[in-house]
């Protein structure tokens, strides 16, 4: 029964992937992609990768989907021109054959992988007590491979700088996106008042549980960012000015605190990003706490986009937070 279910899900995934690729309408393709992401997170659940499933749903399906939908909205005007561009039948057939060939080789390689798969999981489990956390994923991300996590946080900051750099010069320092004005008695305003308290609790729970159970700062940050964006879209708050001192601080506090903890490790334990005995858990909590505002802000601001106006309609100081 479960094998049958797996097979059905696998076929459905393949079909959705193909659908996303061949769809000519951008909106349809994005819709296919979002559903694909959600289905993929189900697959991760079945493979007992709950952490990956949560991340896939939050980032792969949710955040990326929202970004893509925003892009589709902006591309509406060019769609007809893009659809008219079509390669010849020969080119398309060759491309399809080539892709199929590469896929076949990849599939053969996956079948040729050694059984049982060589893995570092036992080593990670053996060394986990030294980190003081119960979730091995957290151990890998914040102790064994902490450098990668630090760099990923920096990648996010760079991505945000890249988006900001697209702003017209005259709006530099201003606020991104349009100022939303929704009906104060409408359903969106209602949701924006009711959902955030729940979302914040759920987000913080995911954050705290991440030390010992599936969850963690990334998934938590996605939910918190979504709540903030909901408030903005309902017109209850405004996107922040990108030159605000507090905003800038929030954006860099995570990686900077990460580096500071790493330097503390270099002093105490003799290795950058190392932890002295007994200090691992509190230091990991410090890093996670500092990364949370960075991730919430960067994810939300990435969706907000480049600065596009100089001020909101609301009085200064009332927006954003």
């Amino acid at each position, binding site marked *: 029964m479960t094998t049958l279910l797996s097979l059905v899900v696998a076929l459905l995934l393949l079909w959705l992937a193909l659908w996303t690729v061949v769809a000519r309408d951008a909106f349809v393709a994005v819709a296919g992609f979002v559903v694909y992401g959600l289905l993929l997170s189900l697959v991760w659940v079945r493979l007992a990768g709950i952490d990956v499933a949560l991340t896939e749903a939050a980032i792969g399906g949710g955040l990326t989907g929202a970004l893509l939908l925003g892009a589709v909205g902006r591309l509406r005007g060019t769609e007809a021109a893009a659809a008219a561009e079509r390669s010849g039948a020969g*080119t398309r057939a*060759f*491309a399809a054959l*080539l*892709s199929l*060939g*590469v896929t076949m*080789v*990849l599939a*053969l*390689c996956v079948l*040729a*992988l*050694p059984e049982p*798969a*060589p*893995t*570092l999981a036992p*080593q*990670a489990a053996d*060394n986990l007590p*030294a980190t003081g956390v119960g979730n091995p994923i957290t151990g890998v991300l914040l*102790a*064994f*491979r*902490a*450098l*990668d996590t630090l*760099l*990923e946080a*920096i*990648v996010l*900051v*760079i991505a945000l*700088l*890249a988006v*900001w*750099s*697209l*702003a*017209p*010069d005259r709006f*530099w*320092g201003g606020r991104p996106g349009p100022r939303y004005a929704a009906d104060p008695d409408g359903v969106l305003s209602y949701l924006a008042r009711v959902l955030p308290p729940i979302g914040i609790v759920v987000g913080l729970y995911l954050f705290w549980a991440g030390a010992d159970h599936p969850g963690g700062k990334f998934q938590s940050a996605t939910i918190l960012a979504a709540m903030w964006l909901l408030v903005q879209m309902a017109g209850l708050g405004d996107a922040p000015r990108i*030159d605000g001192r507090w905003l*800038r601080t929030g*954006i*860099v506090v995570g*990686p*900077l605190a990460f*580096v500071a903890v790493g330097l503390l*490790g*270099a002093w105490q*334990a*003799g*290795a*950058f*990003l*190392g*932890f002295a005995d007994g200090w691992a858990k509190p230091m990991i909590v410090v890093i996670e706490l500092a990364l949370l505002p960075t991730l919430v802000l960067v994810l939300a601001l990435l969706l907000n986009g480049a600065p596009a106006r100089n001020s909101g309609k609301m009085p200064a100081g009332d927006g954003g937070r």
Partner: protein
Amino acid sequence: MALSTGTHAGALLAAAVLLPFVGMLLGVLLGGRQVQRVALACMPLGLALALGITVAWLREGQTLVYLLGGWAPPLGIALRADGLAVAMLLAVAAVVCGIGMYARADFATPPDVRESRAAFSYWLLLMAVWGALNLVFVSGDLFTLYVALELLTFAGVPLVCLAGSGETLRAALRYMLFALCGSVLYLLGAVLLYGGYGTLDIPLLAGAVQPGAIARTALALMTAGLLAKTALFPLHIWLPPAHGGAPAAASAVLSALVIKGSWFLVLRLWLDVMPGVVTWASAQLLAGLGATAIVVGSVVALRQERLKLLVAYSTVAQIGYLFLMFPLAFDATGNVLVHGAASTGGLLQAVSHATAKAAMFMAAGLVYAALGHDRIADLAGIARALPVTVLAFVLAGIALMGVVPSGAYLAKKLLLDAADGSGQWWWTIVLQGGAAFTAAYVVLVLGSALRRRSAALMQVKRVSRLAEFAALLLAVGSLALALAALGPLPGHLVSNPLAPKELAMTLLVLVGGALLALGLSRAPLLAAPRPAAAAPAGRLRQAALALGIACEQADRLVRRWSFASIGLLTLAALFGALLLVGRAT
């Protein structure tokens, strides 16, 4: 917890990676004019760190290692610096400092605003590129290297469109999409290797990897992906518009530095991770692409009307040059790639190119700033108006040509020796021909710049002295590399540069270059109209023009999306096939 954290000076490696990133983060925090100050303060510090690493490496006489957090691979991540990494760290630090000097004039925050978009973005992204490159050089782990590639791409893309026009935005998007395709292929390969061998640490992987389906597929995919990021012909779809359209201070970063990151990674993969998986035929294909890049890139460069595009296309050609070392790096059995004369030559070539190409873009940018245009045909009189800039351009060109005395000369010598030693005479032709092509576009530009002008030259802007000297400094540095490299190199390689044989070779390259420039340039190089009696020369010129147009059309064809994306996968498939069947014995 492991007690050892690697070699004594290993901590310097972590510092070299972190310094630019911390500088970037502090810049975001402080904002305004402080961004530039923080970046400029980081530069001497970073250069000092790179020098410290070099000294430590020389003193310890072995690869520097640092275990992050004290966790040993495969569980943890190690930073390592061998000779290749140390040389690249030092070169990049020097070039970043030069670019920083140059960019002070172009990317200063205007006095009437608190913070400007272009200055804020430029200095932060420059820091990010620097940190990402340092990470590429010292990382000993294939996944950390993936993160480094992402850092490099995301920092490089916005540099392309800092000017803010629609055209540069299109170039930036093109760059990003194609580079991300390359990333995906690299990541696929890394995942396959982890699935097959359970580690991503380079030395551990090198010890475990077997020439089988998994290693071959991984190497083919990763190589194709990295070539897309390096813009090796025919995957250079994004390079000319991106490097030609970006502001000069950004083009210098992109052309001199950013492409070296993915090139370096190909070197790592082929020589350090899977030297036994690589086959003779696959190395021939790689260098063959390089040779094609030299011909097409150079010919199209000679047909450009704008100086910056000429320099951008010359980068396409120079990237090809960087890949000529691979078939020359095999050991005596012809089955395993080894570090030796060829890899040293390749490295020297990369360092020479990094310094000289940065200088060339800077000079082109200064010419554009002074004249308000960079049409090659209208450069007459510029040599008199901007002598230092033109000198920097010519010295950079000489450095790239590989005539005495320059780093590229030693590089060419090492590669020529390796080609002789392994009996691969065809690469000798490519190596010498490539030098002649480089000579050609220097002659072309110089011919126009030295021409006398009838009317007074209209200068729209005074250029910064500091910027001119920054360009000159980098060009001279590229020439002086020969001196720096003489120490570690075996003495017999370097013959007296003034010996008749060497002089004749230099002359041959220059004359060949002049002839190429005469034949291939769009407008006739000699302004005086030719008498009709020169009919045979006219026919030759027509043949050369036909070749030029053919190369331009080939370039236009391969830079279409459909061709480039199909080419990417085709190359992966070709490499896979040649890795399977291409063994020499």
